[in-house]
């Protein structure tokens, strides 16, 4: 019943990949409590399934896949949360109007990202921030390599299209326009 000798002990796998998976989940959920719950949840699922995992499997991609499914389930079950603003952003020394405008823009972009179809959103995050190859992304999201590439491209294009419109509007109303687009 123990794990096969050819597979690393599960805790070795955790040491090797947990920090990276944490960052991925954080990017997906952006709410500390959700991120922590999802992390524990995903690794428990992985632990329970580890005995049955093929020893030739790509462990990293497999963990990503479980994390992706777990995060998606959690996203479905929750209301949208406000953006997590980092300290320096809040206290950037900019005039308050500028700060508000920045905040609204970020909020709008974040909402727009969350409104993307999940494969586009996840491909974008996996490629741009987790720096995975399209091949790895295709394994994790169960698509072809071409679709993984197309999803990143389409996601970015969609975001740009939304905010180009907003950008071309009069500057003083920028924040307002963007936040409408982002709804």
């Amino acid at each position, binding site marked *: *019943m*123990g794990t096969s000798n050819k597979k690393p*002990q*599960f*805790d070795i796998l*955790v*040491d090797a990949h*947990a*920090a990276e998976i*944490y*960052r991925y989940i*954080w*990017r997906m959920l*952006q709410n500390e409590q959700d*991120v*922590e719950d999802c*992390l*524990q949840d995903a*690794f*428990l699922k992985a*632990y*329970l*399934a580890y*005995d049955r995992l093929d020893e030739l499997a790509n462990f990293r991609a497999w963990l990503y896949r479980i994390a992706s499914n777990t995060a998606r389930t959690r996203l479905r079950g929750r209301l949208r949360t406000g*953006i997590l603003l*980092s300290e320096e*952003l809040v206290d950037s020394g900019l005039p308050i109007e500028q700060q508000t405008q920045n905040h609204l*823009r*970020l909020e709008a*972009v*974040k909402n727009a*990202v969350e409104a993307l179809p999940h494969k586009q959103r996840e491909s974008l*995050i996996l490629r*741009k*921030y987790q720096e995975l190859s399209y091949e790895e992304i295709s394994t994790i999201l169960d698509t072809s390599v071409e679709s993984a590439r197309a999803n990143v491209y389409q996601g*970015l294009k969609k*975001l*740009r299209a939304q*905010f180009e419109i907003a*950008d071309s509007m009069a500057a003083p109303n920028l924040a307002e326009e963007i936040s409408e687009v982002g709804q």
Partner: protein
Amino acid sequence: MMDIIEESLDTIYGTPPAGTDALNRLQNNVQQWQNAIWYDALRDSPVGPLLVAVGNHGVIAIEFGTDETGFVRELEARHGVTAFRSMDRVSEAISQILQYLSGDRKLFELDVDLRDLTDFQRKVLEAAAAVPPGYVATYGEIAAGIGKPKSSRAVGQALARNPIPIIVPCHRVVAADGSLTGYSGAGGIETKAHLLRLEGATIA
């Protein structure tokens, strides 16, 4: 040139926290899982409800009945680790038990963990496990087999406290006259007879 989208995305997604606390808690949990006992309930089997527990060294307990709380409490007290309910972890043991109880399997291909028993108890259970399906041995034969010919009564007691009934076949051990004395499972002697009939043994 960095456009407004890229810039915003970088602000939102670029710098996740280190997550040190969450990662430490995860490592602690993993340690706990690796030492844990996993159990699941089998609501309706041909011999009534069963609780089955598996540790890292194999099946560690089987109990007739539905007293999940009592089962968990005893496991945790006996082994000093946490018991979690998990279908995944126990599914192999449960499916073999079901195959056996429906007559589709003669022998179990499972590790059993008898490490917390005394030498004597373990020898008795190992001797019982050596009796093939379809056959029975007497308490005296088991006692003789482990080199303690005078201890049939103690053999009976060790079998009565078998932590892994069904898989460790204490039901294959009978009285000297062939009668089915004592079985701690639900249904008592009737269950013992059921298991022996299932295996094709001739019952006195």
